[in-house]
Each structure stands twice: as structure tokens, then as C-alpha cells.
């Protein structure tokens, strides 16, 4: 049986390529979580991806802020989003 770990955040990240569970240190910044999610879902690292809260998909989380500053806690669902480019 696992112990409740006050130092980590257990969250789900949904993307266009499925949903995965992630465990982040509470000090993790949005940018770090985004990079881990991009890698885990197999997307190219060079493109611009952003995380949004599932409860507020219209507002990307600011990369330099820690996840906890958005009240992200165990069970929070995030969405990995991208803009692509205008061609």
C-alpha cells in the first residue's frame, strides 16, 4: 500500500494521444510538467505546447509558475494543448 506523499502531485494529463497519469514534485513548474508530458506522449520537443486546466481550457498556465500556484492537487485533470502554426 502506498503512503500519502505530501511532496508530490498525482495528476492526469489528457492529450489528443490519450491520457496518462503523472507524478510531479510540488515544486514543479508548469514548463517542466509540460516538457515531461510532451515527451511522454511522443510529441516533438520543438513545438509549442501548453497546459490548461480541464476546468478552464481557454487559459493556458504560465510556464514559469509552479503547478501548485494554480491549486493543482491530487486528482486534478490537465490538458496538453498546442496551437500549431498559420501557414
Amino acid at each position: 500500500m502506498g503512503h500519502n506523499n505530501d511532496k508530490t502531485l498525482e495528476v492526469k494529463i489528457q492529450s489528443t494521444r490519450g491520457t496518462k497519469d503523472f507524478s510531479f514534485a510540488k515544486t514543479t513548474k508548469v514548463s517542466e510538467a509540460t516538457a515531461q508530458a510532451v515527451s511522454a506522449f511522443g510529441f516533438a520537443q520543438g513545438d509549442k505546447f501548453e497546459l490548461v486546466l480541464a476546468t478552464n481550457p481557454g487559459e493556458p498556465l504560465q510556464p514559469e509558475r509552479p503547478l501548485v500556484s494554480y491549486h493543482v492537487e491530487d486528482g486534478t485533470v490537465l490538458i496538453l494543448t498546442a496551437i500549431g502554426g498559420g501557414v
Partner: protein
Amino acid sequence: MAVDKEVTRQHLREEIALVEELAKTCGWDVTVDYETLTVTVKMGAHNGDRYIVEMVCDNYKEKPPYIEFIDPDTRARGIPRAYPRGKDSFFHQAGPCICAPFSRKAYKSVCPAAPHADWSFGNWQTSTVNGVSWVDYSKLGDMLGLIYTRISRADHYVGRMA
């Protein structure tokens, strides 16, 4: 050479399954017709504007899907009013179309009014035009996600094309 319909069906099953949870979270209404190989998705913009996206996937993935917007009120196909308007050329007035390698309608060889005579289907999944790794948008869910991101954000969506 035509793609076997059952091969295309398998791509549709797999790719739609990948985006199923996200679709539910975002409130998309997804319908797949495995006979006509057509995916139809109803989704809403951040201000409540409704959009219907149709993806016709014959010969997918040799060819990208033919993506069209359908007016939610009149069911007219491909008219400017059916399209979103953004701040760049992704939703392109020429066509009108989604201007991306994954959008068959953006190719002038398919649609004479389309913006791109310089694109060919051969590398639609691996193109890097505009410095974008379009391989990240080579599955149906990726394409839908891109459309939704652009209409769900007030900093990108400015209303209907007409």
C-alpha cells in the same frame, strides 16, 4: 493507389479512441461513419459559437482528410460563415479551408481556390512548413485538438469568418 477501406477504418478506430477522453472533457460530440469513412465533430467556441467539423477520410492516411466546416444553422457546407476566424492564416479565407498540411482542402490540386499549389500529399505527415513539426498533428485527434484550441481561447478566436 487506393487505400483499402478496412485499413482506413482501423486508423479511424485507433485515432478516435485516443482522443475519446479529451473529447468528453471538452464537450465535443463525435460521430464516426465507418461506411463513408467520415468523422463529424460538433464543438463550441469559448463564447458559445457552435461549429461542425467534418473530416472525410477516404484513402487516409495516404492522403490527409478532407476537412470541411458545416454551418450549424443552415447545414451549408464550406461557406465562410461556417468557418472560425483567427488571428493568423490557419483558418484561411482562400477555399475557405484549414491551411495546414493535414487538410486536403488546402491543396490546390484538390480545391482550385485553395492556397497551396506548392504542397504534395507525399510528406503531409512529416512536413515542417512554417517551422512546425506537423507530425504532431498527423492523427485525427491532433487535428481536432488544434481546431478546438484555436476556438476555445479568447486570444486566438475572434468570431466567424463571415
